């Protein structure tokens, strides 16, 4: 699975697209692993921008659970942002919204990752600074 990747300070933003289902979960996990290793080594944050994710199955959610566990153990962070309506409902029904750090927007995710990351993100996104 191709992930669109951006870096803001020491925060990594990765944007998957499409369906993370029984077929898509393994490629998603494989694409995620080097990024997890990177943020775990740096004790920084990985933000998953789910704006273009149409569906996620239990297998895909398990990948997120395993990834969150890995980052937690290494004093790093995993955040999921920009859930679309269907995926947001799946997170709620599966109770994943209670066990993962889910934030409404990328801007709010960056705010949790540190001032420098947010400043760089806003500059790149063209958002007005506060």
């Amino acid at each position, binding site marked *: 699975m191709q992930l669109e990747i951006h870096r803001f300070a020491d925060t990594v933003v990765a944007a998957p697209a499409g369906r993370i289902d*029984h077929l898509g979960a393994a490629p998603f996990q494989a694409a995620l692993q080097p990024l997890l290793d990177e943020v775990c080594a740096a004790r920084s944050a990985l933000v998953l921008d789910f704006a273009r994710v149409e*569906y996620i*199955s*239990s*297998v895909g*959610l*398990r990948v997120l*659970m395993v990834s969150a566990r890995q980052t937690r153990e290494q004093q790093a962070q995993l955040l999921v942002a920009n859930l679309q309506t*269907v995926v947001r*409902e*799946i997170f*709620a*029904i*599966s*109770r*994943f919204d*209670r*066990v993962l750090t889910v934030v409404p927007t990328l801007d709010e995710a960056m705010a949790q990752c540190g001032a420098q990351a947010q400043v760089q993100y806003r500059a790149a996104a063209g958002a007005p600074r506060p």
Partner: protein
Amino acid sequence: MKRVRFWGTRGSLPIALTADGVRRKLLTALATAHGRPLDTEAAREAVLADLPFGIAGTYGGHSSCVQIETGGPDFFVCDMGSGLRPFGLAAMAQRAGASQTFHIFQSHLHWDHIMGLPFFVPAFIPGNRVVVYGGHRELESALRRQQEPPSFPVDFSIFGAKLEFVHLEPGRQVDVAGVGVTTLLQRHGGDSYGYRFEAQGKTVVYSTDSEHPLADPAHTERFVGFFRDADLVVFDGMYSLADSISVKADWGHSSNVVGVELCQLAGARHLCLYHHEPVFDDAAIDAVLAETRRLEEITRGSKPLRVSAAYDGLAIEL
């Protein structure tokens, strides 16, 4: 096969509705009825019809016991939880005086699935025949053990019916009184077994106390095959998905989310959530059912999947 009737639907241990629970239901019902006409039976029924099942009814508290009505003279039952007691009384009333044969399929031998046998009245009646099927080699010894001192005052010698025990091999279909029965090994502490019943063009799958390791595609394929085109899948939806793969991983149970996914992949027609978490009250199970129906709706492919939540007394026509 004609219908499936639920006699016990609660997981892990039986529960009972409390006085406080009844009072809260009544308060909600009275609030709903406020200002509405109540002078006729039809008017009162109309008020009740506007209440959620969790208020107007209850999911019940007996542990696992499900009857499959095949249309034949023999009784088919899955698991001997505490729901076996009311089932036995109903069976006696239904065919009073006649000798009866009971085919009982055990998912496994944990306490909540066998505790009904000492109270199964048909087993006390000479002339009756009780055949217990299962994948566990300890089938007979486990059932005898729960009636040994000091756990119970009477042992198997009290039973007047003829008791038989049949070991089933996973993957092999056997014919039981005209019904094709296939057994599948499931992941649960000490193992459990699922059953697929096929007769007269209808298929019912009973799959409880079964955990699904999501990272194992071969496991998923086995269960999709087992559920394939089933008219009804009775499914262990005890936990949320998040709980089932985190704090309750390896507890041997599954979730509503995995139930929907497996049934959708298998092209099953009806998913019935079963083995309810004993800490859930009626409102909580109502909420799980509503969410599961919504999940099915937003993930539906070409074929709709009907979703129900089992309750003690529910009968599902096939």
